[in-house]
């Protein structure tokens, strides 16, 4: 049914540009009829594959792709491949052993940095009722498997030296299971009673996560693409506990950034409250990554602008000349 809906929608819509995120053949090959139809249509659409910086462990990815013949599809059905990362940092051509035909289609766009103004840190800190204390934001993405990080963080707080004043904001995420959410909420309330100098606030979800991040002194998070890119755009100190189950995308990304000295990473299997507490203190005394530092290691955060440029180029080649606002 999905295959039919996608195909019929595409045929009726007659797109000029077809962007496919992450999976070359979609779920279970559902995109194949559509890709073929677009390839043969009277007004051939440009099909573009979109990849994150790191997709998965190279060996696993190759096996996964072999199953669905993704390499062949990338060679035949896609006109371009846009990678939202930097070749100098992680080169999919080398890591995934992509053929010449495929690698010729690749355009590296840089990371999709955050591109909007924020209220000042002072304003956000004021709204949170903060004076001069250190502000730590703990975010675990959608929260589905975020409980261990939240739990370890709370335990780490308990063993920090008493003179360290910290305000912590824990964001659970929309998919944090109800039971775990309650445990964390209770622990936070308890801590606020026992250690009033170290208040912890818990919220299950916030639209203002970026505002909070912009005002934070340190971010504790998992290793998803968006979160890490936001941390880097905002030039924040970060302690990252990547997800290692299912695939090693987050582990590879976090190790990469750690090697460049942009953040610190902890393998979840080796994470303990003691280690996290020590890292917290260490990180708070270290300088935050600067713009110069990002540039020096070759980290380009201008991906959104690059994407716009590519879209304009392709539309221009098709005789469509959109006017832009800048």
């Amino acid at each position, binding site marked *: 049914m999905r295959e039919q809906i996608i195909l019929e*929608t595409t045929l*009726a819509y007659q797109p000029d540009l077809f962007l496919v995120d992450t999976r070359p053949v979609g779920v279970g090959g559902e995109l194949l009829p559509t890709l073929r139809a677009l390839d043969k249509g009277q007004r051939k659409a440009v099909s573009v594959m979109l990849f994150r910086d790191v997709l998965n462990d190279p060996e696993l990815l190759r096996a996964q792709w072999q199953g669905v013949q993704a390499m062949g599809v990338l060679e035949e059905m896609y006109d371009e491949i846009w990678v939202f990362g930097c070749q100098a940092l992680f080169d999919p051509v080398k890591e995934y052993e992509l053929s010449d035909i495929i690698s010729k289609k690749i355009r590296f766009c840089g990371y999709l940095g955050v591109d909007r103004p924020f209220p000042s840190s002072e304003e956000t800190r004021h709204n949170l009722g903060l004076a001069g204390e250190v502000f730590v934001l703990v975010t675990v993405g959608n929260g589905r498997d975020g409980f261990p990080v939240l739990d370890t963080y709370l335990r780490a707080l308990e063993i920090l030296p008493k003179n360290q004043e910290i305000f912590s904001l824990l964001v659970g995420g929309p998919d944090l299971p109800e039971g775990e959410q309650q445990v964390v909420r209770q622990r936070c309330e308890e801590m606020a009673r026992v250690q009033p100098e170290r208040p912890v606030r818990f919220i299950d979800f916030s639209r203002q996560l970026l505002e909070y991040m912009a005002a934070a002194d340190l971010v504790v998070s998992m290793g998803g693409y968006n979160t890490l890119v936001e941390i880097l755009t905002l030039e924040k100190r970060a302690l990252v506990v990547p997800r290692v189950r299912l695939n090693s995308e987050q582990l590879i990304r976090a190790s990469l950034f750690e090697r460049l000295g942009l953040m610190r990473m902890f393998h979840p299997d080796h994470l303990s409250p003691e280690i996290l507490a020590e890292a917290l203190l260490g990180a708070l005394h270290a300088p935050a990554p600067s713009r110069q530092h990002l540039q020096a290691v070759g980290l380009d955060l201008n991906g959104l602008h690059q994407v716009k440029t590519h879209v304009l180029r392709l539309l221009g080649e098709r005789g469509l000349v959109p006017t832009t606002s800048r």
Partner: protein
Amino acid sequence: MPAKLLFYAHNGWGLGHLSRMVKIATLLQAEIHDLSILFLTQSSLVHVLRLPPGTDVVKLPEVLQKGQFAAPKRLPLPFEAVTQLRQRIMRATALAYQPHLLLVDHAPLGVRQELLPTLRALKEAPSKPVIVCGLLDLTGPSYVREHWQAVNAVPILEELYDEIWVYGCQALYDPIKEYELPDTVARKVRFCGYLGVKPPTLPPEAIRQELGVGRGKLVLVTVGGLGWDGFPVLDTYLEALECLPKDLELHSILFTGPELPLEQREILDRRRRQIASRFPWTRSVQLLEFSPRLLDFMAASDLIVARGGYNTVTEILSLGRRALIVPRVAPNLEQLTRASLFEERGLIRMLHPDHLSPRSLAEALLAALRAAPPSRQHLQAAGLDLNGLHQVKTHVVRLLRYQAKIPSSRYEG
């Protein structure tokens, strides 16, 4: 293989059509085993309404329709291109899904006749679906007559529809007579009764306690659905509060809906604070956008002030609450007709929007609060059947049995 239902719900003006269909889906999923329900709708709010398990949505590109005016809501494409797109998505979905029953809400041809290709394709489909049109109790008679004539709906109902379910009572309002339906169509009509709701499990006292309402009166004001035209009622209500006797302890919850413009919300908020400072002990006002617990709050209220939409009025009556209805009188007379009908039978009180003023509303509030709430006996005597959801389930089971897609019902009754 489960029995497959396909629901078409177009929400033009508010959320009413869609939330009614979700209500039906929720009951069917609770009471019939192994049932798949797929919605065709343009609304991106469908997930806010909490879909039951076994249910999913194919979302259509959005169009706006106001009377004769129609345009795409989001895509900057010609209207024809977007309706083409919608038509083809619907038809492809229907053919791939192969439903056993298609339930079309309200508009037998869909927006601008977009359903025709799907209806025709399903007539030939291997799953041989039963095609049903669900109609409200009433929809302003002249509107239906004119509109249906313009789109040639009667021949389509004759040719392509197997049944027509009316979510109302023939004794109260007879669409066959009012819409002048020919015999060929009238034969297909089944009256289901109003789609009443079950009272919440929490006792009203507990809800009142939670809201901090002790001995005083609790009045809930809701302007229905999205609330983009609710301001006059909400604003007049707050002004009316100031005209009421000083010693009357009265607590209010106002639901604005998510689309109330921000400036209007600020005006209401200012008035709310003014009232709170003038009557610190006797008059509290809460201003809420939306709550999934609206029914809980309704059940605990002494009086509900609302517009005259089908869902709201039906909910109020099935909870046995007093209602003061200020019906919409545009784009058609549906709400006015419904409110007048129920007022004549002493089930609700009505205030025509042309006569809406702080003073008239204050008087109507006092009178409504003094009157007894409608009792079960009263509803029965007026010929009001609120068992529509159960009837709809019975019809679904009957049709699927007839199709030999015999689902086991979780209870028979």
